[in-house]
């Protein structure tokens, strides 16, 4: 079945590659971007019905790169199961749906991950009253764990590796895990760190819960496009990179106009004042300027959606720039 799907997907996107997604998007007049049906901090409709979040900003950045207008995007909601076929069939132009970059998705499903906009990983959350500061002290704890997921296997590995025991309380959904933890039926809840943060934020008193420092798996989340359309892949990749480079160079939505008269060559190249990088991508010369102006740099998007000042309170951690202790790194803009 999976093979059949892949073959079908391959034959379908072969057509798509010929047509050229960038031209399709330009002709259509707006971008179709796949997002989640709602995940705190990544993509969720706000009170006025506008999609907000880190992934929603990613979609908007690409729309700005192509059209110079952040509103030229239509958000298509997808679920964990429907996201890949929706992308493969050409119903959406790109997917920005907290999707983990793995080899099978990149190669076998026929997609192309163009970068990472959030480094996530499996973590642990415990009541602060438990007085635990490291996951290695959790010997004998009852752990709420979603069955049938990779988190379950990671958990077993971690505890075996550290020679400690645990008792699993199997749950089906995130909500269920939340309720069980809050009711004290389990001592520990484990899932992706971003999910833990939103669970913590939903608690009556978030300060009663702590997320332990151990991250036991790699979950690089990033936008992806169909395999084979490199021109379009480049547009999405460099829309993301432009936001990261802008942070490196200290360009924000506030100071971007002042930066136009900067004397740093890379700033001028990024903002389109020098060189013809827009032309190479078949975009307007000021595409990156517009992204920074209308969306902001990576840091601005992070702080507004998931950062320490939001209810999610996710520290930059791995997602800080490589110069600041994280692993966020974009190739040079030249």
């Amino acid at each position, binding site marked *: 079945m999976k093979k059949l799907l892949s073959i079908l997907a391959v034959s379908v996107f072969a057509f798509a590659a010929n047509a050229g997604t960038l031209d399709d998007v330009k002709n259509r007049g707006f971008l179709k971007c796949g997002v989640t049906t709602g995940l705190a901090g990544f993509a969720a*409709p706000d009170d006025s019905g506008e999609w907000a979040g880190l992934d929603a900003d990613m979609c908007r950045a690409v729309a700005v790169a192509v059209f110079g207008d952040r509103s030229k995007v239509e958000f298509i909601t997808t679920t964990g199961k429907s996201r890949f076929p929706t992308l493969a069939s050409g119903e959406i132009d790109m997917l920005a749906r907290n999707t983990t970059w793995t080899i099978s998705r990149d190669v076998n499903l026929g997609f192309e991950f163009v970068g990472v906009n959030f480094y996530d990983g499996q973590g642990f959350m415990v009541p602060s009253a438990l007085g635990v500061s490291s996951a290695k002290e959790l010997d004998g704890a009852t752990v709420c764990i979603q069955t049938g997921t990779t988190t379950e296997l990671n958990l077993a590995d971690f505890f075996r590796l550290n020679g400690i025991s645990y008792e699993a309380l199997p749950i089906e959904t995130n909500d269920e895990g939340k309720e069980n933890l809050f009711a004290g039926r389990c001592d520990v809840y484990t899932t992706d760190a971003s999910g833990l943060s939103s669970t913590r934020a939903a608690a009556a008193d978030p300060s009663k819960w702590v997320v332990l420092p151990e991250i036991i798996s790699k979950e690089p989340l990033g936008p992806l496009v169909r395999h084979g359309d490199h021109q379009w892949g480049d547009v999405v990749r460099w829309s993301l990179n432009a936001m990261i480079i802008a942070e490196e160079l200290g360009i924000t939505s506030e100071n971007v106009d002042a930066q136009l008269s900067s004397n740093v060559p890379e700033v001028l190249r990024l903002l389109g004042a020098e060189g013809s990088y827009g032309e190479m991508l078949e975009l307007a010369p000021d595409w990156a300027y517009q992204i920074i102006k209308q969306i902001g740099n990576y840091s601005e998007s992070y702080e507004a959606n998931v950062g320490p000042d939001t209810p999610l309170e996710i520290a930059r951690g791995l997602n800080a720039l490589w110069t600041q202790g994280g692993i966020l790194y974009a190739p040079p803009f030249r």
Partner: protein
Amino acid sequence: MNEITESRKPPLATTGILGWLRMNLFSNWINSLISLFVLYVLIQFIPWILNWTIFAADFKYNFNGAEITDRTMCSRVLDPENGGACWAIIYVRFYQFMYGFYPRDEVWRVNLSYIMLAVAVVPLLFDKFPFRKHFLKFTYVFPVIAFFLLNGGLGLESVSTNKWGGLLVTLVLGCTGIALAFPLGIVLALGRRSNLPVISMMCTLFIEFIRGVPLITLLFFGMVMLPLFLPEGVNMDGLARVLVAVTLFQSAYMAEVIRGGLQAIPQGQYEAARSIGLSYWQMNMKVVLPQAIRISIPSIVNTSIGLFKDTTLVIIVGLLDLLGIGRGALADTTWLGLAYEVYFFVSLVFFIFTFAMSRYSLYLEKKLKTGINMGAD
């Protein structure tokens, strides 16, 4: 001599409220015990529920009188001991719950459709409605009008179904599914009982296949597999694909319900109809189906209610119906953690619709005296 003696009143314990209580709640010691237990639970529970949902609840303003714009301003977050429900999440997002992401300038079209839906359906449901015949003409053209009104075209700005959501999607799926599945179900039921082997086999195959797979499978098939089979560039609308799946699913169930009604009609009815020279269609339309559908009413309403609730499954394929919009609201960092309010509201809306449907079915059963003297009256 004939003295008119005043008739004695029945014993006090068998009439009035007291009698009713004794007859219904305290007729023996087991019943009394159960009644007392239920009463105790209600006394414990009802004041708490009322307090939480109404008296201690925030609607637009919290107990300080400030307008609530995010969860931290809710009374129950500020004061977990005394605060009740924080309905502000529903209040602020009411538009989304009703219409999804439908453009605000165009929302009159949805409202107009709702009003027209009422005008189209109410005369259909009550046969004493004045000028019913003329209204029914409108009922037939209503689906076409609603389609253009909601979707756009004919001079109206097109609103892609991606922007539909909330109650709008729930109603579109529920109404279309129920309305289309009924005639389809009748055809399938008649087909399955047909004497022509090809027709009967095809109908049986269709019904058994659809009934043999869960609705989720059909939704996935419609949403995920169908686009892969269509040529590139031909994109069937997402909502339309789901509608097809829902209608097929419902029609298979409806067919079996109606077939159940058909089985109950005595053979003599068929023979009598035939003997007075009615054709196959005349026999079915005038003699068999009216009786069969009449006895199937409870089951028809039952499956319809089931479908109406099953429409929430569309969230799995990425459509945001009423429940989906609710979950989206819970994922907004502004409102994290107000799950009780959202789910309470969504279940209340569903309850209103399904309860209305079941009450209507009761009314219909009473009016048509279903189940009494079938075949003899």
